[in-house]
């Protein structure tokens, strides 16, 4: 299957040179706007002559009022005693920790005037080293979720899922406490159900609760489970923990379906480690790790791999057995007998085995499988490859997955057998929705006499409960986390609780009437946590003599690492032969389906967060929903066929809806064509299709996508399996007219072959080509992505040099006096520039959400995205290259390039976008009249127009966008608006906006340097995308300062400017993508 394509492509249309894509790429704004508006007005506006006069009348009236000289009286209430830490206009940062189940990220919370508005990474953490994830970035918006419970609720009132009307209140905490305590007896069989609990203090609170109610059990489960991994480690090493992986020490990595860069266990930590051996710092002595991903759908990790081996989901066990046996035969181990893999795939794994063995001691095999036998074999593989002690460490074992599938299934049985008296559900746990057998769970739950949910927002499980005792959002909480053994992290409140909520621990201690609870205290959880740390953590260290000093230091840093006591080495055990008999058996079914976790949606806990819903999936580039990934087949030449010929009109924004049947359950799903999807399987993301993601009329994430959990199954060993055999995919049954896939939006032009002449041309520039050639690059072969293999690095360097020389020659013929400007203006003071290393970028999307948070970028909803109206300032373009059916991927973060010879600036009729002496392309909203010439003229397609009043900034409700089943538009509610960054203008309808290089941060950094009377350092100015990146792919700074990090990275011969031949003199340097692909595996 050697279907190599020399160029990059984004979709089928760019391969087949489809005129649709040409049209789309040629137009900045897709679709006939006038036509659309006319259609809209027919349905919504129904403007008649009287209305017209009314609007006009208002306009005149407004002008008259404006002409008078009245002024508003504005009053302010000053502080009587100003809090020390609040200075109006100055941000305060607090160290805290983002924790959601097993997801963990140590952070700094930026607050303005007491409001948390932004999450930054905590660089003091040795785990994440200052990186963040999209989920952590977006969590600040969940604090202001309008769906949150405003206080405790009781089902007796009958409106659990409804938002409370203003002025009405539910039961008080005293009433709830009394009712619950009356139902609890000392012998009650109580089950506290939660996802992974990272907090030692919470566990202590459960233990204190258990002291009064001895028949209490804490049931931990993870909806997307690593239970088999824990069990395998228990059998092989005697400890049911996730070990600490060191991807930075591994030179050969094999991952069996573990999406360790996207969603698997601790992606921020792993991504930072992973890119250490993936970036090219020195071309002369370049070294890269070798990464093979064995999987049955294109995952984020797979897209970053050098080679992918495509298998059907049911072949996973056979694949692991095959690799095990190959490695065993090379290292002298004993083989195991297990299911066989088709010879073609087995041959590939044989080659992988030899590379792994070559790097023995520097090799790492991981698996996302939830099959006990498979995980044990992976342990066996790592043992043979000498990974333990080298790339895998048990001393610092991770606590980030603790869930047991057996425990939760046992609970389902117990409940159905009437053996449970009370069930408590911790925040985030939603077993009534996210179990494969949630229907049985719900049935059993009906037999439980007392059901209490601690969830902060309504969810499927909470609505079935008798009482809701809502806990705080983590930004309002005191708490701690132990993500790894000996690594502790504190959570501190950054705002007083917005609602009448109470922390779970306090609820438990209150009901247990525990003497450890200080009822008189203003902040009982603070006292409890401090007490816990004093007894348990303070003695673990010797640095601080007094507890207060220790506490202050830990609270300031946010993290505390206890010196680990030496652990005795333990041997590797486990019966591999028996393990091999437990692996899944390949199925003969024609079509299989795999279910996976996406970067943004998790297991559905994040469904009500519009920032995550509208963050495009890195691979499929779809938003607001999960889409069935179908394979794309290459039939030779330009003949690309999709499965069942579905989605022929994807680029038009139309996708087909099919009916998928698994285990007799039929659901309809929208299709997306996916390169790199094996021919005999399809894939669908988990976590979508939540029924009740929030309060009625306020939930944004309800009924978005398809729920795949009921299609999952439980294997003989009791673990949840995320794939299904025997899947029937129907032909097209319907059409999704607003296919929200940003893949085809804002295309910069991709080369393809002209079907008539066979020449290589730019797909979007065909018209220009026929008109004439030569000027400013002739627009052939636009330089968007440069890439190459590790072994041909010198050729790549030479190629880039050649192309850049060529561009320089073309650019020499110009009227633009760049040298003069450089000498007189840019060469002194600051001249901002950015560097993006395409090898370090894994496409995780943290930067994109950080940009949204920092710059008040509006969310627009599925329908608006469907018509190319997404507003993101930073997009991550995804390009394929290589084998059509098994391509490699390169991600390119694309934001305003701040061209010094900017084409957008020249065409603005009102000078709303001029250039600054520091090289910034400035966008001034006050001046903008919305002609959109600039956006049309932008070669990078990074300018965004406010088609509607996305932030409800003006007076006409008709201009607002209503993108979900909500009473008022997103960002119209004053609660949601608390997340806005006061340093950045909230744009109104009718103006263009774009990336500003976070100019508010630049101004702040410059001011700091000025006040301190010193030179500006690159640490003073960091853009939001840069600080969010877990891998350091983005570096920003002043290119006039020759000593900073940026200048060092600007020296790399792999650097290039995108579209350099257009002579726009952009300021963002990209470093070419290099892969370490083993061609031998392509055969």
């Amino acid at each position, binding site marked *: 299957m050697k279907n190599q394509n020399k160029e990059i492509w984004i979709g089928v249309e760019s391969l087949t040179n489809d005129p649709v894509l040409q049209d789309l790429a040629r137009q900045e704004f897709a679709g006939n706007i006038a036509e659309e508006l006319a259609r809209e007005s027919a349905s919504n506006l129904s403007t008649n002559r009287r209305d017209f006069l009314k609007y006009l009348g208002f306009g005149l009236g407004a002008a008259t*009022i404006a002409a008078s000289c009245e*002024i*508003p009286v504005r*009053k302010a209430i000053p502080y009587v005693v100003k809090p020390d830490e609040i200075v109006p206009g100055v941000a305060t940062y607090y160290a805290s920790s983002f924790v959601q189940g097993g997801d963990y990220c140590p952070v700094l919370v930026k607050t303005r005037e007491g409001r948390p508005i932004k999450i930054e990474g905590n660089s003091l953490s040795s785990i994440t080293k200052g990186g963040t994830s999209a989920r952590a970035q977006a969590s600040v918006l969940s604090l202001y979720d309008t769906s949150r419970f405003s206080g405790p609720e009781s089902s007796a009132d009958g409106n659990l899922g409804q938002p409370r009307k203003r002025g009405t209140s539910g039961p008080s905490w005293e009433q709830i406490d009394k009712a619950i305590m009356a139902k609890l007896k000392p012998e009650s069989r109580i089950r506290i159900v939660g996802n992974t609990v990272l907090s030692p203090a919470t566990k202590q609170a459960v233990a204190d609760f258990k002291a009064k109610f001895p028949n209490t059990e804490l049931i931990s489960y993870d909806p997307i489970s690593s239970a088999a991994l824990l069990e395998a480690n228990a059998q092989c090493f005697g400890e049911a923990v996730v070990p600490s992986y060191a991807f930075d020490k591994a030179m050969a990595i094999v991952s069996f379906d573990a999406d360790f860069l996207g969603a698997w266990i601790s992606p921020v930590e792993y991504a930072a480690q992973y890119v250490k051996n993936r970036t090219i710092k020195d071309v002369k002595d370049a070294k890269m790790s070798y990464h093979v991903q064995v999987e049955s759908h294109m995952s984020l990790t797979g897209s970053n791999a050098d080679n992918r081996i495509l298998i059907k989901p049911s072949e996973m066990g056979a694949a692991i057995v095959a690799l095990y046996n190959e490695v065993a035969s090379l290292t002298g181990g004993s083989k195991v007998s297990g299911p066989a893999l088709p010879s073609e795939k087995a041959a590939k794994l044989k080659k992988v085995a030899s590379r792994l063995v070559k790097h023995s001691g520097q090799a790492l095999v991981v698996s996302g499988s939830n099959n006990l036998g498979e995980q044990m074999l992976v342990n066996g593989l790592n043992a043979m490859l000498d990974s333990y002690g080298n790339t895998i460490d048990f001393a610092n074992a991770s606590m980030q997955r603790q869930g047991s599938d057996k425990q939760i299934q046992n609970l389902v049985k117990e409940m159905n057998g009437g053996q449970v008296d009370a069930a408590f559900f911790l925040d985030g746990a939603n077993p009534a929705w996210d179990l494969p057998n949630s229907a049985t769970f719900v049935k059993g739950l009906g037999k439980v006499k007392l059901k209490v949910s601690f969830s902060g927002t309504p969810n499927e499980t909470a609505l079935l409960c008798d009482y809701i005792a809502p806990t705080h959002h983590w930004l309002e909480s005191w708490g701690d986390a132990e993500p790894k053994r000996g690594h502790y992290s504190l959570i501190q409140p950054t705002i007083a609780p917005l609602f009448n909520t109470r922390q779970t621990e306090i609820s438990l201690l209150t009901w247990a009437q525990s003497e450890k609870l200080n009822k008189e205290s203003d902040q009982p959880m603070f006292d409890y946590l401090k007490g816990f740390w004093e007894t348990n953590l303070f003695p673990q260290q010797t640095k601080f003599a007094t507890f207060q000093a220790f506490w202050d230091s830990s609270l300031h840093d946010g993290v505390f690492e206890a010196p680990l006591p030496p652990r005795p080495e333990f041997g590797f055990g486990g019966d591999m032969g028996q393990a091999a008999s437990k692996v899944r058996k390949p199925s003969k079914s024609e079509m299989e389906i795999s279910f996976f976790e996406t970067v943004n949606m998790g297991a559905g806990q994040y469904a009500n967060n519009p920032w995550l819903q509208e963050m495009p999936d890195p691979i499929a580039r779809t938003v607001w929903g999960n889409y069935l990934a179908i394979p794309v087949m290459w039939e030779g030449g330009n003949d690309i066929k999709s499965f069942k010929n579905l989605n022929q009109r994807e680029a038009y924004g139309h996708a087909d809806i099919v009916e998928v049947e698994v285990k007799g359950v039929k659901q309809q799903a929208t299709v997306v064509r996916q390169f790199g999807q094996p021919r005999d399987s399809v894939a669908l993301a988990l976590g979508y299709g939540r029924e009740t993601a929030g309060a009625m009329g306020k939930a944004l994430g309800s009924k978005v996508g398809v729920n795949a959990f009921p299609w999952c199954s439980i294997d003989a060993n009791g673990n949840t399996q995320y794939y299904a055999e025997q899947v029937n995919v129907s032909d097209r049954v319907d059409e999704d007219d607003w296919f929200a896939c940003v893949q085809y939006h804002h295309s910069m032009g991709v080369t393809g072959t002209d079907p008539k002449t066979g020449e290589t041309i730019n797909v979007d520039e065909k018209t220009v080509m026929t008109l004439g050639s030569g000027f400013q690059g002739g627009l052939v072969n636009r330089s968007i992505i440069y890439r190459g293999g590790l072994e041909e690095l010198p050729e790549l360097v030479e190629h880039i040099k050649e192309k850049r020389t060529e561009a320089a020659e073309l650019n020499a013929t110009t009227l633009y006096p760049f040298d003069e400007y450089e000498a007189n203006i840019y060469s002194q003071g600051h001249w901002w520039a950015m560097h993006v290393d395409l090898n370090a970028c894994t496409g995780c999307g943290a930067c994109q959400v950080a940009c949204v948070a920092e710059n008040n970028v509006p969310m627009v909803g599925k329908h608006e995205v469907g018509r190319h109206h997404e507003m993101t300032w930073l997009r991550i373009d995804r390009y394929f290259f290589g084998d059509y059916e098994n391509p490699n991927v390169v991600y390119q973060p694309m934001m305003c390039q701040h061209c010094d010879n900017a084409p957008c600036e020249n065409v603005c009729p009102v000078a709303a976008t001029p250039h600054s002496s520091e090289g910034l392309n400035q966008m001034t909203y006050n001046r903008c009249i919305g002609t959109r010439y600039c956006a049309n003229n932008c070669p990078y397609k990074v300018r965004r127009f406010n088609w509607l009043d996305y932030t409800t900034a003006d007076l006409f409700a008709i201009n607002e966008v209503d993108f979900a089943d909500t009473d008022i538009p997103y960002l119209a509610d004053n609660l949601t608006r608390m997340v806005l960054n006061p340093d950045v203008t909230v744009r109104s309808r009718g103006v263009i906006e774009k990336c500003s290089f976070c100019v508010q941060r630049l101004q702040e950094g410059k*001011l700091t340097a000025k*006040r301190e009377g010193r030179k500006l350092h690159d640490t003073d100015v960091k853009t939001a995308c840069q600080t969010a990146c877990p891998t350091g792919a983005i570096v920003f700074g002043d290119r006039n300062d020759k000593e900073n990090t940026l200048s060092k990275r600007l020296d790399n011969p792999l650097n290039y400017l995108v579209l350099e031949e257009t002579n726009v003199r952009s300021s963002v340097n990209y470093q070419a993508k290099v892969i370490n692909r083993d061609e031998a595996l392509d055969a």
Partner: protein
Amino acid sequence: MNCHRAIKVGSTYGTAELTKIFASVGYDPSTDKYIPNYEDLSKDEIEQVYKKWISDIYITDKGTLDPMGERTINEQWDGIVEALTDKKTRDFKIQGPIEWVRIHNLPDHAYFNHAQHVSVGKLECQTCHGPVEAMEVVKQYSPLSMGWCINCHRQTAVKFTENPYYQSYAKFHKEIAKGERDKVTVEEIGGLECQKCHY
């Protein structure tokens, strides 16, 4: 609810934003009106203005001005005078903060930072706020409009040689050393550019 929804058609609030910039140098809080000769008012006249304001609020609250109301007005005024004139006898019995009336009206969608002007630029308070030390009641002294800002940026010299931050402007330093220029204005280092204030 959304504050924008609260603005009724015909409200003076939103539209007056356009013109308020020049309208706030000296005004009467009780009538919401600009007093042309505000600067010439004596202390007694200002007392009348404030007492009228307080009595208006009292009448709005209670319906009529009774002897109790008159006492209240005098007490309030005395309290204001005491609190504002003698720091040694600060009255801690005052319940809650006094509602301040915002005197300085600024253009919207503009970022202004005092530290940049006072700490870095070493400007005196009086340059922009006038002789505040002599004002009985503070009033807006300068228009604080964009034109006023820009004009000052054109004329004002940066503390160029004093602050090591500006060393990155090598070309200007060379010109100063050669004697070709004696100062660098704010304009010359980008002080007129849009995104110095608008972002």
